[in-house]
């Protein structure tokens, strides 16, 4: 494909080269499930599209002691992957709650991250899984923690010549526990009013590697650092779980919108975290 306004990259190097030549004029296109909505609503008119859906960036594999998920892997591919099921069951649960089957079949995990919606389900789960993201450009690559990737609604640290290559997750070890809960206006095909993702490891009853993340309750998917630290190294009981859930709710800064009020979002966050922790620490 040589046409200048639609470029189908055959590999990541082609995508990076074309992106560095095009700069801000170009948008990266993967599944298009967010980009096309913006285009159809006349909110965006990209002069150029660089398509990465057939660039081989969709591999999911265990590599060098990590689970590595290519940014162009579809939600359906993530859900069906044995490696993801074995090492990141939380991500499977979150991806199952994204959109509809038709969305999951073509929408990608990298798109869910780069679109940077505060309500992004996969992104919220990945925060709780301690994900790193690898960003590449024609000039090199860098890896950063996903929690440092988002800077605001629809905004990230990605430079104009950079694209997301892959997501890197630690492998599960020991007695790993997790939970995902989403509250929406209906059960399926919705953007969350609030979501909660928790991952932890139980070591003789003690909580380790506790990570609590919340969606749709802050300008970005939120890693609840204080609440997570509060449970780290401790044995969960009813009163501690209540304190942690309250701390998580306190870390949120939700807004009123068509889906729910700020007050409701804050309340429900505490409830979701409490429910997950109660079930996960049994």
């Amino acid at each position, binding site marked *: 494909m040589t046409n200048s306004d639609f470029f189908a990259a055959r590999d990541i190097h082609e995508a990076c080269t074309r992106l560095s030549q095009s700069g801000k004029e170009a948008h990266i296109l993967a599944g298009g*499930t967010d980009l*096309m909505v913006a285009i*159809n609503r006349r909110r965006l008119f990209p002069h150029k*599209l660089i398509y990465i859906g057939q660039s081989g960036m969709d591999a999911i594999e265990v590599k060098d002691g990590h689970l590595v998920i290519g940014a162009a892997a579809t939600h359906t591919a993530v859900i069906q992957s044995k490696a993801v099921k074995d090492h990141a069951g939380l991500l499977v649960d979150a991806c199952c709650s994204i959109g509809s*089957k*038709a969305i999951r079949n*073509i929408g990608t995990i990298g798109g869910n991250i780069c679109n940077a919606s505060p309500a992004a389900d996969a992104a919220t789960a990945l925060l709780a899984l301690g994900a790193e993201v690898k960003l590449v450009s024609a000039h090199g690559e860098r890896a950063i923690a996903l929690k440092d990737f988002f800077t605001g609604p629809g905004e990230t640290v990605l430079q104009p010549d950079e694209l997301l290559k892959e997501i890197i997750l630690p492998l599960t070890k020991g007695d790993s526990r997790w939970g995902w809960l989403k509250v929406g206006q209906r059960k399926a095909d919705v953007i969350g009013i609030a979501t909660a993702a928790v991952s932890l490891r139980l070591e003789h009853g003690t909580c380790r590697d506790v990570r609590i993340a919340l969606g749709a309750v802050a300008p970005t998917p939120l890693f609840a650092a204080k609440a997570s630290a509060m449970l780290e190294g401790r044995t969960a009981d009813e009163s501690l779980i209540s304190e942690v859930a309250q701390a998580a709710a306190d870390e949120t800064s939700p807004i009123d919108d068509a889906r729910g009020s700020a007050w409701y979002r804050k309340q429900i966050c505490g409830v979701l975290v409490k429910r997950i922790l109660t079930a996960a620490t049994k």
Partner: protein
Amino acid sequence: MPVLELKVNGNDCQVLVEHTTSLLEVLREKLMILSPKMGCNTGDCGACSVILDGMLVHSCITPAMVASGKEVITLEGISASGELHPLQKAFQDNHATQCGFCTPGMIMAAKALLDENPKPTEPQIKKALSGNLCRCTGYKKIVESVMAASADNPASGS
């Protein structure tokens, strides 16, 4: 302007498109294939559902160029022989078509399900159709139709 080459319902097609043109626009406006409907145009209602290389997609938010070199099946393509597809027959027998606007998308979503799981349970059917909205709110007959069509399937699966 990019040239899009794809196969639609078994026919090879070549179409000139804008880079931001949706697959739905190509089907309806360039190829005059009118079963996929434009409802929301944002991937919420499912009226535009088609099968792209075996996968159910919302054609309104699928960039046409993404279908390059691929095969698209629309409702027209599942009864190409002139015989009604078992799902179409079941929708007819069970009066599952009310205003008809959502029907092509419903049938394509149901077909994608039955291709993957020939004997789905009722909850599995409801889940598979959750990306398709019916404005007449007649879901019961739609679900019954899919159950009826699956009953005729050779058993493989639960």
